[in-house]
């Protein structure tokens, strides 16, 4: 049995976070813009995967909302960071509705507002859905994703319609994205390790038995869903100010599908798995882009095939579900004690071999 040692673990976590920060500092100063953009993407996808895993993996309620909540978060924070003059200039079809046209917030404040608005949306959805049965959550959240696009296209005086919002200040940098990423992971890990987290897992494992032990399943599911929505909304704000242009067509179901792959490959229910897999798949997905672009190898011209990446991804998803359902991590989490024990064992076996 690995030994738990809270003080040592805290110290080790602190040290590794410092290393991560040093790496980010180095990256910020030396890496190309393209690489930095991927790093930012990875941070945003970790935020999304970890919070999406909270409702799907930890609480066991299958939902398909991230694209919708990203959209809500992205639009909310974008609307609040634009200055009144910029709003006047870019809303050409219809001027922006008052009082939104006059309000302007700082970037961090807009992120908080984005999170709160998104969490509120989630709360409104949770009430009809979790009162009945969980499996309608999937279809309601999927439907919400479609509706959000319809609404974003139609309420021109808030969203600028199909034109979208352009020219956002590129506030999102390595420090914001990774700072919020670390904050999110810490929050989720703490929540999961509290009594609320245990209640969420109990609801996943056996809802009836959880209720018979005094757990209000409706409230626990709503908490998990609202909590993950908050961070998905914040991630939306980060994304908007990373790519600086948002439009309704950006937030299709494809985004949700990518996240679903991430949490399934990482191991549904494992926060560690969600993080590892978010890194791997965001990186890998970037590499796989080549499949869809025309390339020439040794003089042969290959035409890119649109959709090929998604065919591969859906095959991976089905394959993992059918043959390797526990994914990379199962439901296990990283613990320092496990790493240390593993290192010790390796040392002793090496000593034996010599």
């Amino acid at each position, binding site marked *: 049995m690995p030994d738990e040692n809270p003080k040592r673990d805290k110290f080790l976590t602190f040290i590794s976070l410092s290393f991560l920060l040093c790496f980010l500092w180095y990256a910020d100063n030396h890496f190309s813009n393209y690489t930095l953009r991927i790093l930012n993407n990875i941070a945003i996808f970790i935020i999304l995967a970890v919070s999406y895993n909270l409702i799907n993996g930890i609480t066991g309620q299958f939902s398909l909302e991230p694209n919708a909540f990203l959209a809500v978060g992205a639009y909310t924070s974008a609307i609040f960071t634009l200055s009144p003059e910029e709003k006047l200039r870019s809303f050409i079809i219809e001027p922006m509705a008052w009082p939104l046209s006059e309000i302007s917030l700082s970037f961090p404040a807009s992120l908080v507002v984005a999170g709160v608005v998104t969490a509120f949306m989630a709360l409104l959805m949770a009430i009809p859905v979790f009162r009945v049965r969980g499996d309608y959550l999937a279809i309601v959240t999927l439907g919400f994703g479609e509706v959000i696009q319809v609404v974003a296209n139609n309420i021109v005086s808030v969203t600028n319609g199909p034109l979208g919002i352009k020219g956002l200040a590129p506030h999102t940098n390595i420090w914001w994205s990774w700072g919020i990423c670390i904050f999110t992971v810490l929050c989720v890990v703490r929540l999961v390790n*509290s009594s609320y987290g245990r209640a969420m*897992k*109990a609801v996943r494992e056996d809802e*009836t*038995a959880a*209720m*018979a032990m005094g757990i*209000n399943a409706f409230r626990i599911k709503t908490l998990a869903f609202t909590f993950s929505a908050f961070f998905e909304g914040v991630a939306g704000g980060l994304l908007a100010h990373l790519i600086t242009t948002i439009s309704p067509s950006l937030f299709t179901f494809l985004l949700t599908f990518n996240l679903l792959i991430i949490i399934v490959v990482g191991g549904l229910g494992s926060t560690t798995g969600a993080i590892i897999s978010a890194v791997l798949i965001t990186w890998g997905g970037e590499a796989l882009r080549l499949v869809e672009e025309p390339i020439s190898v040794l003089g042969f011209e290959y035409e890119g095939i649109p959709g090929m990446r998604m065919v591969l991804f859906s095959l991976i998803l089905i394959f993992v579900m059918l043959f390797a359902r526990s994914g990379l991590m199962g439901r296990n989490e990283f613990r320092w004690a496990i790493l240390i024990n593993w290192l010790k064992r390796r040392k002793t076996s090496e000593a034996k071999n010599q």
Partner: protein
Amino acid sequence: MINLLNIQELAVHFGGLCAVNSLNLRINSSEIVGLIGPNGAGKTTAFNVITGIIRPTKGKITFLGREITGKPAPVIARSGIARTFQNIRLYDDLSVIENVMVAAHSSVSYSFAEAILGFGRFTRDEARIRKRSQELLDLMGLGHLTREKANSLPYGSQRKLEIARALALEPKLVLLDEPVAGMNPTETSDFAKFIIKLRQDTSIGIGLIDHDMSFVMNVCDKIKVIDHGIEIAWGVPHEIRNNKKVIKAYLGEN
């Protein structure tokens, strides 16, 4: 002795089928009451109705003088009724101690915000819950298995874990659905001693369903017999043992 549970004229219908028909039952504190009857007699259904998993068609259930008929399961559980399940329903993928700690959730005083920030009541409550859960596991003889996964335990230990979990709710009444099913005679007699001691130490009321007649006769103060949802006898063990209707219900097919 205080009256805990009082069931009056309880009836449950599924479509056309009548699972329970005008059941009356009282359980007092420090009392062990058995609910027995042939398969399909409606015993588990009665437990499910008491704990709010199924809504009754008719009848009234009060607990400590307050009506709980048709209330949601978590509300009933928090008011002090804990249970185990006939087909063992543990949280399989959670560790043994986590299973017990889940049931203490209703006693947690910290909010989820405090859980995230990790100060104030969080540390104190977590320590209290963990200590209490460990005590209950020790009591059930599972203290050394704290970190195992619940579904890796052998059958008998899983039954004990369910009881530890039920007790973590700090209930006034515990309903045990076939607690000794699958246990060998030694385990069964140990378990009988355990619940008699539990009743003495804590004055909680216990309702139990089981098919092991010698166990039921041995531990119960009073026994209710039902058959096809209808109540056929009520009394102390030796009255039940000699009741003609009961013998007929059990052996009638021959």
